[in-house]
């Protein structure tokens, strides 16, 4: 571990607590402006006013807003996310059920897109304007512009419909993982490829790359030992952001493939005005981004010795 890094991490983590509380307050306030009464929605069209009033008491909606907010925040600080109004189960349990699914698919997707994206991006940069580079640039453009749900549907049509080799939806076996992971990987893959290419193109024009060549190193050795590490900093940043986006729940992909992930949980909660679940998943998403950004910032210190956090 680098000098001063432990202290830096501690400061960042402590600093994240007020940030997450602010996020919690914002999401709480915004939900107050959402149309529809959760109690009415819960009971359905033909509920009597008495039933609704009873339900509001049960849900704590009869209390003044500041009391509701303080209860929610106090719960958060204790680690208690409350109970889902829809299922009646603890929110922590709901998230514990769905987050690992999303995390699994996201992790596979980000690994695929990072490994392939960096390799293809480097190749494309080293052979700038070659046939390979031109093909890569067209495919990348398509990858960035393609709507995810459409890609998912096409993959289902081809691999489940015509070829019949992969399941079109559901969850449970490794086969179920393939299509969603590929779908999710496409956009980050295109982004990472494009960024690696441009970053690499910039680095291989640097004087120190010429110095390395003048030492008698082969082009391959120059790329691996001198260029890659320098080109990697912006790429790591984007990998981090993309991983965060995936973890926050790929609503469309999870819906297309009927995967029981956190994205679908959240969307279902929004439709049902299941405030405890919405609030928890928003705060959780914020926490994930904070953590990933921290990891990215830590990785900088290993990539570039000029970046230090010990002062």
């Amino acid at each position: 571990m680098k000098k001063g890094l432990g202290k830096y991490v501690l400061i960042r983590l402590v600093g994240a607590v007020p940030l997450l509380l602010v996020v919690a307050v914002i999401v709480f306030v915004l939900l107050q402006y959402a149309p529809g009464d959760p109690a009415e929605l819960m009971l359905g069209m033909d509920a009597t006013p008495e039933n609704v009033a009873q339900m509001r008491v049960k849900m704590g909606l009869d209390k003044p807003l500041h009391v509701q907010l303080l209860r929610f925040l106090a719960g958060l600080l204790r680690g208690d996310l409350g109970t889902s109004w829809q299922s009646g189960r603890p929110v922590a349990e709901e998230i514990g059920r769905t987050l690992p699914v999303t995390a699994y698919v996201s992790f596979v997707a980000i690994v695929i897109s990072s490994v392939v994206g960096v390799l293809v991006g480097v190749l494309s940069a080293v052979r700038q304007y070659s046939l390979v580079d031109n093909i890569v640039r067209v495919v990348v453009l398509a990858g960035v512009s393609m709507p995810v749900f459409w890609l998912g549907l096409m993959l289902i049509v081809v691999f489940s419909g015509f070829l019949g080799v992969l399941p079109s939806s559901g969850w449970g076996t490794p086969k179920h993982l393939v299509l969603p992971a590929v779908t999710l990987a496409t956009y980050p893959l295109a982004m990472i490829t494009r960024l690696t290419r441009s970053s690499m193109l910039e680095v291989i024009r640097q004087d120190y790359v010429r110095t390395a060549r003048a030492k008698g190193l082969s082009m391959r050795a120059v790329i691996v030992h001198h260029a890659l590490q320098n080109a990697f900093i912006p790429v790591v940043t984007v990998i981090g952001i993309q991983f965060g986006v995936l973890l926050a729940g790929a609503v469309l992909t999870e819906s297309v493939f009927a995967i029981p992930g956190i994205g679908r949980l959240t969307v279902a909660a929004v439709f049902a005005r299941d405030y405890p679940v919405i609030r928890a998943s928003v705060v959780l998403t914020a926490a994930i981004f904070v953590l990933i950004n921290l990891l990215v910032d830590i990785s900088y210190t290993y990539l570039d010795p000029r970046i230090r956090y010990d002062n």
Partner: protein
Amino acid sequence: MSELPGRTQPLLEIENLHVEYRTLDGIVKAVNGLNLRIDEGKALGLVGETGAGKTTTALAVMKLVPTPPGVITAGSVRIAGREILPLGDAEMQHLRGNQVSMIFQNPMASLNPVHDVGSQIAEVIRLHQGVSPREARVRAAGMLRAVGIPENRAGDFPHEFSGGMKQRVMIAIALACRPRLLIADEPTTALDVTIQAQVIDLIKSLKRDYSGAQLLITHDLGLVAEMCDDVAVMYAGRVVEKADIAELFQNPRHPYTLGLFGSLPNLKKSVHRLRSIGGLSPDPKMLPRGCPFHPRCAERMDVCTERTPSESVVGAGHTVCCWKYSESGGTR
């Protein structure tokens, strides 16, 4: 060396070298039929304005002209008698950093920011001397000491050094394998004047121990006078005049060389303005017909606008490319 005194074996011989950059705006003719020769153990100064093709010449000797857009279209480059232009990558990689080394103009950007300086020196040693990583580190530390940097700074990164110290590290990298030819491309241009003197002294003092011949690229005639045995003056991609240092400084012949000396300040005379050579160096995309200097030349003759002059011998080891001195050449 066992050769006769005065005329030893040529270490670097460049004949009729042509290099051009093929860009979208047109073909930039950077080097146009350049001839050069450096003898074993000698230092040659290659002088000329910005854009004269000095750096391209140096890169051609390393076969590091950026391609595309650069292409070596014709000519011959021999190092210690061996023709290098047809050599493949692997053979060139064996020569670079080993037999021929180069110090670049901008030390600030020439070192890799993410590796410590010790490993950047050790890398070239390990590559060419086939020693263990540990031994390479030891030798790298020795090179650091040789360029006047304490060994214990080997683990420091380039951003922790000043510009002058970075250039010292570059010198250590270039000399680590005791190259037969050291190319120094404006090694002091980017440095403070006080640091310049230190770096020059360092190159001079290390030359004896570490390097055979030397090609110093500069636009600084004072630097050439201090460091070199011979001088070649370059204009629009060609060498227009060459001689040993005493001869050239006492007896410059080419109108361009005369112009260069004329633009030097004279400490004994007080002048209102320094003299300059009228006009600009030609656009290498559209070189003038005939002698490329003729549009700026005060002594222009008809033939100068028609045909390119070839080398005329005007003294011992002193050649000039100018119709003024050509026996077969033009008439006034």
